[in-house]
């Protein structure tokens, strides 16, 4: 686990490059910053400043090394690296409301853009005229599209929206790709065809994610619940209510394990083993222990006098993130066996989490001790002792 603070501004979104040495983030403004990893932390190397509205989505295609950004100014740009500078190309998305989220398809020949105009814009590059074109998916969407995810077959697209539904559409564009084979979601897939519509997910669907094989779809909604649709099992939906504040982002880290995080500032792990079998596994953030092992009598009375309480300073949350987590992203490992994932939040921090399936909390307990003077974090576990300087 490592935490890096990118400043005071909340981080709206983030994306990693192919070898995870660079990260593109947006600090709640119309600018994208690209940071390069160094031994001491992260150095800013580029600033992408074409948008005029707040940036709402960034995605970095690992193989073709292109970045797509979308913002509330109803535009999207595709950035390509030319001679150590990123050059933008405008995409004709033709929306009349803000864009909310953007995702490259697995083969990177197109991307999907969700917007407040109640439609999804699927954009692809047309070589003849050398520009990016878009096709719209509008069927039955009644409100803002909040989240998108692509199926591994490069054709199916899942969308969660503010009209409390989650849907799976076909985004097959015959100009640029072959017809896809049948999947458990359906066989006929013309563009815009809706293969699944789950009505009433209980709340706005903030996050959505396909499993590594594409057979299952997980989403989190604003009524503090998580749902999974299982295509081979007749598209049966299993829902689980959560005792915490609503979750905002969800990620499959293996075929059965799901990680979700949100307003509770902490990632949680869930496990889906079949229809009707969705369970909470554990909290992935280990609470930190204060460095003060025993308060002196003086401290004790001072606290009592000042705050009428004998408890210690409770100004910070005991989770790593001090504010809601807005986005989760895979860092290391193939989709079917993720080793590390990252989270960014409203506190301006980015945390990279290690993930191991089947490690119980008491086997490798990690104590995080904060030393306020030297700003170091001392971590000790049953296996190793290490110091992380911040």
């Amino acid at each position: 686990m490592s935490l890096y603070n990118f400043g005071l501004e909340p981080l709206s979104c983030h994306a990693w490059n192919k070898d995870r040495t660079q990260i593109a983030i947006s600090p709640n403004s119309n600018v994208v910053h690209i940071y390069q990893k160094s031994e001491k932390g992260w150095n800013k190397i580029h600033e992408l400043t074409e948008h005029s509205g707040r940036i709402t989505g960034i995605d970095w295609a690992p193989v073709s090394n292109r970045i797509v950004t979308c913002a509330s100014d109803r535009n999207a740009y595709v950035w390509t690296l030319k001679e150590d500078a990123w050059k933008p190309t405008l995409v004709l998305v033709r929306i009349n409301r803000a864009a909310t989220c953007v995702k490259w398809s697995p083969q990177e020949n197109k991307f999907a853009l969700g917007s407040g105009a109640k439609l999804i814009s699927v954009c692809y590059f047309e070589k003849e005229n050398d520009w990016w074109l878009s096709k719209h998916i509008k069927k039955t969407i009644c409100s803002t599209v909040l989240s998108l995810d692509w199926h591994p077959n490069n054709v199916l697209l899942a969308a969660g929206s503010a009209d409390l539904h989650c849907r799976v559409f076909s985004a097959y564009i015959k100009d640029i790709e072959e017809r896809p084979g049948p999947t458990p979601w359906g066989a006929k897939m013309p563009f815009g065809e809706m293969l699944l519509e789950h009505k009433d997910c209980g709340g706005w669907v903030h996050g959505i994610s396909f499993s590594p094989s594409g057979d299952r779809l997980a989403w989190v909604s604003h009524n503090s619940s998580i749902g999974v649709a299982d295509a081979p099992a007749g598209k049966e939906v299993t829902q689980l209510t959560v005792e915490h504040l609503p979750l905002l982002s969800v990620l499959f880290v293996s075929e059965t394990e799901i990680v979700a995080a949100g307003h509770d500032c902490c990632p949680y792990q869930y496990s889906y083993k079949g229809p009707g079998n969705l369970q909470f596994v554990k909290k992935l953030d280990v609470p930190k222990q204060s460095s003060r092992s025993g308060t002196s009598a003086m401290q004790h009375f001072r606290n009592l006098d000042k705050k009428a309480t004998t408890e210690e300073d409770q100004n910070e949350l005991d989770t790593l993130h001090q504010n809601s987590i807005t986005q989760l992203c895979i860092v290391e490992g193939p989709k079917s066996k993720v080793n590390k994932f990252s989270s960014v939040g409203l506190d301006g921090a980015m945390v990279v989490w290690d993930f191991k399936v089947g490690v119980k909390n008491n086997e490798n307990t990690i104590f995080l001790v904060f030393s306020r003077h030297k700003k170091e974090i001392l971590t000790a576990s049953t296996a190793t002792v290490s110091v992380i300087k911040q």
Partner: protein
Amino acid sequence: MAKNTLSSRFRKVDIDEFDENKFVDEQEEAAELQGPDGAEVESLLRQGDMMTAFHVALRNPPVNTKNAVVKERAQAIVLRVLTSFRSSEIETAVRSLDRNGVDLLMKYIYRGFEKPTENSSVILLQWHEKAFAVGGLGSIVRVLTARKTV
């Protein structure tokens, strides 16, 4: 004071009704539940069987109707049961519910908060504390986000 001599009838028009893009909730064809049976609950309370009265009162919540009378009646019945519990028994009662039951109880509790009477707030706060311990923040969020209110 200048009086507006032109007609102000336009101010009474509900502009949202004419909006083509208005979001309409999907009408579900689910069966209309009429709320718990008041007579049954009364008889159980008289017999002193609190737990059964509690479970009966939480049956058939009128979530699908828009009929205010049905909802008021159901609310009154549930409030009656909640107030007749002793403080020490509240916790066992809450533990006997499943997840959906706790969410439903929370809905009734918040409904009860809307119209406080003499003693109801105190009792409801005790119920709220116990229900919160089991349901967590999620159960309160579900009360706030539920489209189908009790």
